[in-house]
Every structure is written in C-alpha cells, then in structure tokens.
C-alpha cells in the first residue's frame, strides 16, 4: 500500500501533516512519519549541531516537508527539507517503534556514542559570522523571530533575531520597541487546517519581550507588547513560518 501511495507523490511536492512519530530501531535510529498510508523518512537521530531536530514520543508532530527523489531510507520516502514541530498535548499512543528488520542505518554524522572518532582530529569550530555593524543614520527596522508550531520556545533562529534586535536598539539608542506576536492557521495536505492555540501569539510576544529585557536595551527604550488574536491563514511552507512569528519593530 505504501509503495502505491508513494508513486502518487511527485518529487518536489510539499507535504504537511499531523501524526505520531515513528522510530525505526536500527543501530542508529531513524525517524519516520506516516501520512495517507505512506511512510516518510524525516531524519536520523543526531545531536544539536544537526539541521534536523527529531520529534518526541508521547506527542504528535506536525511535519512540513518536501517530497524528495532518491531511494527510500529506513523504509520511508525522503522528505527534504523537512521541519518537525512537537505538538504540546500528550498523546500516549505516540509510542511507535518499528524493528530494524533488514534496514540499514540512515546516513548520519554521529553514532550512538560520543562524537568524533578516536585518533581523529576534531572538526574546526564553525566560522564565526561577524555580527552586523549598525551605524547611523538609523531608520526603523523590523526583526522577525519565528517559532515551531504551537510553541513559544526560542530556538536558535529566534534567539538570533532577538539578539540582533537588541544590538540595533542599543546602537540606535532606540526610543521604542514594538513587539507583536502572531499565530497561524496552517493548511494541511489533507485539506484541513491546523489552527494554533489562541494563547500562543501572546506567549510568543512575551517570551521575546523577556529575552530582550534580559539581553538589555537602552534605559530610555519603551517596549510595547501586542498580539494578534486572529490566526493568519497560511497555505504554503514559507508562509507557514512567517505566520507563526513575532515581529520586533525597533524605532530609533
């Protein structure tokens, strides 16, 4: 059945679905998801330096990916790029581990033990990107912090946006910062909408405010925090991310 469904999916097709994560118990585990009777490969177990952050048992996930060509991995059609959001409510049924069977380990950078290899040479640290230097004259500038679905957790992209906004505010001696939180109504591939909780726009805005205050902005800066009650309807992958954002408008 899965093979037949796979044939119906064209390479490059966006796929957005909600479901339980599935773990294939290969030596190095791989993560899968199921939609419309088809099995999709999401990524390998990795570490925090990887692009792919795996889902979690006991929670459903919302998967946003693009059907990729190439051979299946761990029995699943490869989604790449792929973004996985862990949904907040518990679901004890999300506890699905498949046997390794005859499947090989997925491609991976790190095994189940410590990183690197004995006798090897540590990889050089990633080149540090120089932060943008803000210089006068200053004009109002908006920074955008993006979030996973139904979450106000500040992952690296949001942290970078907040840090950059704080740097700009300090360089410009900002008089005001306007923080506005949003939430999304995400169109799934099955035609239904996943609507983020009403509270999450507010939570996102407040999380950004707290982080900005901790990092530090000028004493004179007045911060206002707003959130939009109505969910922003979104029908494609790029829009999805922008719809679940918090904007940080810094006014010199």
């Amino acid at each position: 059945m899965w093979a037949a469904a796979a044939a119906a999916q064209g390479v490059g097709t966006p796929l957005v679905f909600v479901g339980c994560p599935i773990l294939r118990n290969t030596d190095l585990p791989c993560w899968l998801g199921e939609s419309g009777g088809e099995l999709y490969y999401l990524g390998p177990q990795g570490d925090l330096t990887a692009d792919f952050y795996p889902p979690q048992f006991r929670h459903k996930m919302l998967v946003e990916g693009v059907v990729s060509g190439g051979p299946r991995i761990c029995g699943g059609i490869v989604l790449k790029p792929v973004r996985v959001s862990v949904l907040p409510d518990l679901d004890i049924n999300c506890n699905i581990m498949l046997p390794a069977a005859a499947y090989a380990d997925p491609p991976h950078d790190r095994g189940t033990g410590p990183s690197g290899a004995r006798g090897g040479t540590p990889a050089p640290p990633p080149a540090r990107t120089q932060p943008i230097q803000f210089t006068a004259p200053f004009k109002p500038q908006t920074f955008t912090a993006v979030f996973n679905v139904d979450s106000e957790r500040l992952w690296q992209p949001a942290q970078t946006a907040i840090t950059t906004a704080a740097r700009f505010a300090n360089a410009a001696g900002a008089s005001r910062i306007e923080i506005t939180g949003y939430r999304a109504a995400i169109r799934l591939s099955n035609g239904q909408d996943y609507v983020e909780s009403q509270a999450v726009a507010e939570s996102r805005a407040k999380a950004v405010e707290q982080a900005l205050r901790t990092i530090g902005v000028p004493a004179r800066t007045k911060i206002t925090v707003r959130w939009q009650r109505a969910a922003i309807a979104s029908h494609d992958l790029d829009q999805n991310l922008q719809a679940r954002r918090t904007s940080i408008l810094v006014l010199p």
Partner: protein
Amino acid sequence: MLHLGLQAASQSMLPSVLRVGRHRALRRPLGLGAAALLTAVANAWAQSPEASFVRSTQPGAIGVISGQTPSQITQADRAPIAPAAIAPAASTEGYSGWWNPGNGAELGASSEFDDPAGKIGLINATGPIDTKGHPFFEPIGRNGRACVSCHQPANAMSVSVAAIQDRWQATAGKDPLFAAVDGSNCPSAAQDQEASHSLLLKHGLFRIFLPWPPKAADGSSIAPEFDLEVVSDPTGCNTDPVYGLHSANPQVSVFRRPRVVANFKYVTYGYGAAFNIKDGSPMERDPESGQFVNMNIMADAREPTPKTQATNAALTHLQAATRPTDAQLQRILDFENHLYVAASVSRLGGKLTDAGGPDGLGPAAMLNGAPGLGDNFYKPVFGYFDQWATPQSDDAQSLFRASVARGMEVFFTRPFYIRDVTHLNTVGLGNPIKRSCATCHNARLTGMDLAPGWMDLGTANLPWSDDLPMTAELPLFKLTCRPSNRPHPYLGRVIYTHDPGRALITGRCLDIGAIIMQQFRGLAARAPYFSNGSAATLRDLVDYYDKRFEANYTEQEKQDLINFLGVL
C-alpha cells in the same frame, strides 16, 4: 485585530544593574529585619532610571541576596537554636577525620583521608589553609555550624551518612549538624529524639525550605503554572502551622543532600551564552558583574553564583544574624575556587595516581585539567583508561583495574534508550534517544552536564521514584498544571512528586522534578547518592539507571561501572 497587552512598560521601571559598591544598602550586614530591608531596597531599585539587564521579575538575585532568601531568613529565625549547639567541642574526636567547626587546625596543601573504598585526596592550590578565623571553618552563624559542618574534607567536601551517624553517637545528637532548622525533619519536632532526625541519620538529607509561591529576584511572587497540594507529609513540616505551606510565611520543605564544594572551575564553567540551550529561555546573570552565569550550582540553580550561595547558606543553614562581610565572602570563595577533590587510593586498585596510569584520576588531575565538553572521543569525560585495560597479571589489583577500564567504556559508549527525561529529550535530541551515560554526564572530569544541568531523571517524580523504596519517607506533593499553561511534557497535567526541583524556583510545569546532576568525584567518600539520598550504594545507583532506562546491563557491566565510579 491587534490587542494591546498590559505589558507596555518603560525599561526605566526596572532595577539598575548592580555593581559592586554601588548600592551601599546591600553592603551593610544583614540583620534580623533583613526581609523588610531587602524588600525596601528592591523596591527602590525598581524605580531606578538606569539601564538594566537584571530580570528583577524572574528568579535570581540582587546584589548577593537571592529572591527567596528573605523569606527563608524569616523561617530560619523562627527555628529554635539549642544551647548545646552553640559551643561545639573543639576536638576532632569521634568519626575519623571529622572536622569540627572552629577547631583551628591547618588544612594542608595536600591531604588524604580514609574512606570506605580507600582514600580521598584534596589539594589546595593556594597552599596550606590556616583555618583559625577562616569563615569557611568558623561558626559564623548562631547555631554552632560552619560551612565545613556539611562540607567535610574527609567526605569529599560533602558529608556521608556514615559520618552523620557517627556524630550522632559521639555527641548524643548535640552536634550542631543536627540543628533544628534543617538538621531535623522539622524544627517543631522534639529535637532530642532520634526519630526527629531520621532523614538526616538514615539518608544524609537536610531540609531545604523554599517560599511558595516562588520569589523573583526582587522578592515579588512569581505566578506558578501549577497548584501544589501536600498528599502525604511524613515529616509533618509541610503541614506545620509555623513552618508549613499554610503558615504565615508559606514554605515548601524538601530534603536534599549537600553537594561537593570543590572542583569549582568545572562546576561553574559556562560559555557565557545568553540563552539556555535546554529550553531557550534567557540565562541568568551574575547580579554583580552582569556576566551570564552557567546556572549549574545547587540542586535547582536557585542561587546564581557561589557568592550568593554562601550568603544564603550563612543566613539559613548557619542561622547567621548578619550576612557575611565582603571580606568573609571573599575568603570563602578563594578557598572554594582553589580546592580540588578526587579519590586518590583505591583499596582494590591501589594508588590511583601512579605514573603511567589513567590521567583523569586523583586530585592533581582536577587541578591541572581544563573544563569543557567530554562527550567526544578527543577528550573523553574522564580520559582513557587504556593503561589498565589489559591485566598485567591475574593479581587482584590488575583484575580490578581492568574492570575499571571496562567500566569507563560502559559509561562512555554503551548505548541504551534514554526516554521521557525533560531537559534532555526535550532539547531537540528527540524522545527517545539511543545514547550512553556520557550524553548527559558530558562535562570534562566531573561528569556533570555542561549545560544548565537540571533534568527530570525520575528520582523525585512518580512513577519512577516508586523504584526507590526510601522515597516513602519523603513528603509527596500533587502538582496540577493549570489549564492556561502547558502540561509537563511527559507526565501530563497531574504530577506526583517528592521534590518539584527546579519548578519550586520557576513555577513552571516543564521543570517539575528537574534537578541538577552532581559531580562524580569522591563518590566512595560520600554515600548515599542522588539528590534525595535514595541510592545507598553505587550498586543501588546503577540498578536504578538499569531499570529506569531498560539498559539491560549484564552483571559484569554493572560491576565494572561500580568499580569505575568508585575510583573517580
């Protein structure tokens, strides 16, 4: 429609960043009216027009005083102080190696003390310490205790339950160690009864009393995400009319082991990151220097720095009438920051620092080593043990050393599924993750977590704590996450716990039962283990992990792990 929240506020409403010497009010000795003074000072700061990056409305400290300290002082002031405890004996009689407060002895530049598995070694990087008049060793409070009371050199700078029991016998329970404030099950209990000190005598647990709801740095209350009820209260302290949850000064009592006060360059090591890699929240700052701290000290990171910790400990555990002076605090920190501890001799493995042996053993390794991430093959957590891997003969020492080397490999590389651990499986690694002990215990030479190290291992929360029979002697709380907040990621909205851990500081459901892991050095000298003393032996500890994570260790693997842990 845009909704304008109630959060619009000027930065000028926040307190100014605190610099040493700037705010004289806090540099005064802290008297018995400290709570009122601190509240007034915090309120004054809240009106300061200066720039700020201290989150006064979040957990933390202002100056050297953390948000919870004033209410803790109020409770400590209520606890009786036994007359007999004021004048401790000036000898070291009784338990071998027991260090009495104020005994005036010298602590050498290098020392060794017997422990059940061999010897524990200490190195003072600054040379011998004359403890006469030294605030770490003198009873600077009102109950006869000093810092050294609970951080004994012979016990790897913690205190073992064996030593505690010996002190009870040697002093008929009069040692200041058993002070009513936290060396008994509750200050209201009959202090001359052994049963009133049962958690300390049986499991090495001291009472930690924390305000409920939690306090922010400025002393204001943090709105918790959950309701807290007492389900059972074997010690009676959580339901006590004076000391309990419904008293005039509401406090939650939990019971925890003292931590090792040594090897601090590792314990306080951090990247200076602005965001917590575990949950994305902003990190706390040192309230004096303004630098980000690593949030990895104590069981719950409630104190941002060793300096605020020492201040709080003097005012609560030692029941000091005034806060330590700046000079005293500096001497305490100088001592702590230059003290290194590790096992030095193994009864079965011989001298651990023999030339050509593993380079991660002994206190000199701690002195000479550097902190960092050890969950890699380049600089393993405790180094390699190849030198011992192949027995040179079939004598007991060689065989034991080979077992230790295998134990290191089990610790470092043996995979099992780690699941349902908040602040590990929730950080982006996935749940479950197939990894080894070193995934969490990843910090060089200590085996702590290099990141803010609080995790819910399950030793405090049901159902996993049910595998630790002694937890029946601890209070049990029912925590119900409010509908407006997210549930605990793996336990849902209703959680039963013996110690809410970090959640008593943040009020967050995410943090329920999360406790900072401890360093591995000197384990043999300071049983029992885990924050709640629930593992009496290293075997108990290994068995817990084996069951909790279905690791299916063989008997040989278990013994190898125990032998490895015992020589650290």
